């Protein structure tokens, strides 16, 4: 059975704690860029928690929104890459082939969610921090674009394991790093082609909507907004 990976983000559960950001960084060898680069807006986190103030003191309201690659079915980043480094996989993911990227950064511009990050320099890990690097994920050199892959290495590992054991994938398998660490279980990952999976159920929720869906990118992440206590969506 071919899978179609998707995610649901329940903003009523998300508390803005940032565990997903660091879990992803640890799992995917995302470099720490340092203070100079941070000043220049060159952070490389594959998932970020957007924070918006909707009103000011004495009645401030804040909303948090985790934003990661939406793995769009109509991804604007795919047609524009001249070397096919950005392409669509058979399981619906937007794949990024690091070796093929020559660093035009066109995809970074085309992405309306600004989720693609770029290696402006060769990443540096002060020894022995490099011992932490995940051997299942390549380390990207200077000039290469990168972004969330839905932890494709975990997806592949689960698929291989399942096929070796001659069975189907179970619910909750595979789990990307961000989903695994999220305490309130705001992030849900699964197979959209399975109508009974939790992610499919949440994708069908009347609360659900796509981020920037009006652009026609056909993202695979359904956002469920926070409700106010009187049942209205805020």
């Amino acid at each position, binding site marked *: 059975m071919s899978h179609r990976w998707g995610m649901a983000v*329940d903003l*009523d*559960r998300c*508390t*803005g*704690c*940032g*565990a997903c*950001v*660091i*879990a992803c*960084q*640890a*799992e995917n060898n995302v470099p*720490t*860029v*340092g*203070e100079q680069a*941070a*000043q220049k*807006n060159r*952070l490389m*986190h594959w998932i*970020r*928690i*957007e*924070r*918006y*103030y*909707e*009103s*000011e*003191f*004495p*009645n*401030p*309201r*804040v*909303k*948090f929104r985790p934003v990661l690659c939406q793995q769009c079915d109509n991804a604007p980043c795919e047609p524009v890459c001249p070397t096919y480094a950005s392409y669509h996989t058979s399981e619906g993911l937007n794949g990024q082939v690091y070796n093929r990227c020559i660093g035009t950064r066109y995809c970074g511009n085309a992405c309306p969610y600004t989720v693609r990050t770029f290696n402006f320099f060769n990443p540096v890990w*002060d*020894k*022995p*921090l*490099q*011992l*932490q*690097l*995940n*051997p299942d994920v390549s380390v990207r050199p200077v000039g290469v674009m990168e972004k969330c892959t839905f932890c494709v290495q975990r997806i592949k590992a689960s698929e291989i394991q399942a096929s070796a054991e001659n069975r189907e994938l179970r619910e909750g398998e595979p789990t990307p790093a961000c989903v*695994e*660490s999220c*305490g*309130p*279980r*705001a992030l849900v990952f699964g197979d959209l082609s399975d109508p009974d999976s939790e992610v499919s159920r949440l994708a069908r929720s009347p609360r659900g909507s796509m981020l920037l869906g009006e652009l026609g990118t056909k993202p695979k992440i359904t956002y469920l907004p*926070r*409700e*106010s*206590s009187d049942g209205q969506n805020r």
Partner: protein
Amino acid sequence: MDGGPDNRMERRDFLKFGILTGATATLTACEKPAQQLVRFVPEEDFVPGVASWKPSLCTLCPAGCGVVARIMDGEAEVVRNGQRGTLQMGLAKKLEGNPKHPVNRGKLCARGQAGLQVTYHPDRVRSPLKRSGPRGSGDFQEIGWPEALSEVVAKLEELRSHNRPDSIRFLTGYLRGQSGVLINKFLASLGAGPALQFAPLDEPVLRRANLVSFGRAALPSFDFERSGYVVSFGADFLGTWNSPVSQSIGYGEMRRGRPGNRGKFVQVEQRMSQTGANADEWVPLPPGTEGLLALSLAHVIVKEGLRPGQPATAQSREALEKLGNETYSPREVANRTGIPASRIERLAREMAAQPPAVALIGGAPLAHTNGLFNAVAVNLLNLVLGSIGLPGGMFFAPRVSTMQETVSPNENSDFVSQLLAGRLEQTEVLFLHQANPVFSTPPLWQVPQTLKRIPFLVSFSSFIDETSVLADVILPDHSSLESWLDDVPESGSSEAVLTLAAPAMRPLHDTRAMPDVLLEIAKNLGGSVSEALPWKTFAEMLESSYRQLVEAERCDQSEGFDKLWKKVVDQGGWWDGKCHVPPLEATALSFRAPEFVAATFDGNEQEFPFYFQPYVSQAFLDGSVAHLPWMQELPDALSSVTWGSWLEVNPQTADQLQIRQGDLIQVRSRHGTLDVAAILNPGIAFDVVAMPMGQGHEQFGRYATQRGANPMNVVAPIQVEQVGALAWAATRVSLAKIGKQVPLCVAAGALNEKEKDLR
């Protein structure tokens, strides 16, 4: 790994290969000794390229979450027997929450994830150090363990022989589990007093309040999953307070785990915290009046007869009668808090109408001078709400009676109390372990000066920080992934939990586990000391403690202790429901009638117009994780700042003072000044300024040193009344523009989404 014959063959072959490689490498090394590192024989079995998951414990905050570490083989530069070389070893690549651990149930917070960087930190102390320059200069020379230990042993022998055991003291962060037992046994065998504790994240005010209200000086736990109404007075329970992961799990279920019922969450604070940002209703009020609001809410519920059932004891009934007093009526309280009486009444009625309702308190309200009053007031509110010990309410995590609990310090074991009472002046030897009081106390308490007067300081720290830099000898501890660890988490679980972890990794550097070092010192001292601590290793002590536990609890040992022990080690702890000890019932609650205490603040309003609120921050906590690069680069949830410090100022206030984002501001209190960049925060009160704790280290590795500012430099050295903890939210300050701009690293490109960003 335990496979058929094929696996065994592989392993044998592998070891052969390893030895062969080692031998070859050694031979090759003989040719070019300077260039090639020795290749050591692997010390453990593993299948190359296949990961194994080993349980461990996160020690970065008091919650005590269980973790599992993904171990994969890799080549590391290590030190063995004083020699540098490379070793193919199991390396921790990723931490996840231990799915079986009842506290965090497979989830892990941002700091827990970053804990991986502690083991591999470039600035870890890699071998014992001996001070070679003046105290605090940071000049150390590397020495071997025998020399280091013999120095310490000699010093202790000397003091023993002079019969001055009271001159030996041990400063630690927490005294938890068997390592806490070991420390105190060690001290007792020397005739020394109990260990001193300094843990800024500990919540002594809350413990005292709980002692007053419930007879237990313990931290509370909450069953948010089933709550109908949560009101938090300043507690950052979804971020950094108490047991944040466990609380976050419960919060998520409260919101979306019960279709049609998402509960209501009210946060009461002056500065919108990451937790407060999730509230359905956010209630600001002047600092120090939180307890008053709590009692007013309780007043309304009592007066209108909304509370369920009668309280148990006469004292409680008397307390409740006092509540009906006009002092706590919404009208009176409205004057003091600025919250309209109608709002207080509405909130109270809502709370009572949406059970189970629970109240909690943490953060700044406990750090005012009237923190104890505020906490007892909230306890009383919980009594009134009637959810103590019940589903959806507040409870105390069940304990295992025979296992060492977390010892909460009393006057004799609280480091700050002893310091301020001058009890450290006679100290000759001070052991320093997992505490950095030089950084986390106001300079006026003169902690560094006091420490410098102690003739011999021994630190177990893995890093050179403001406190360990003063040490004479550093005996670096293993990181948590390299150690045998045990823990008794105090909150966050509805079943009794004992965490136990075998080392997930071999040591990288020439470090030794602190408990093992104590045991070795004890052995060297001989006599009554070594008799009191008969174990060769800490692992041995742990196993024997579990034997005792299993005996005392009459656990099922039909399959033998070894099987049980293996199960405990494999799963990372013991939470077997069979040996469950029931939690304290809420039947014997006795409540003293609260005496109203107003908060006082250091500094007069004219000269120091702003309340100063440092806060335990998401990235640095109290400063103890500021050295981790992932944490420095994590954008703060609300300010989105990285790699720096910031002062949160209300935008209207900033307009009045002509302060723009990034302006360098001098913050001045009666006791000190600091310079920090301003950031505009629409979620903070007009007369409050806030900044994160944890930056401004003078020493703490390359990522944290000389970065930002330490709010302790302006905090007034006042203590919470009757408790003795630092009242870090009781300072008033003034602001002055220095006239410089600081290039703040702000990750957010805009404050809001809908309107044009005009700033």
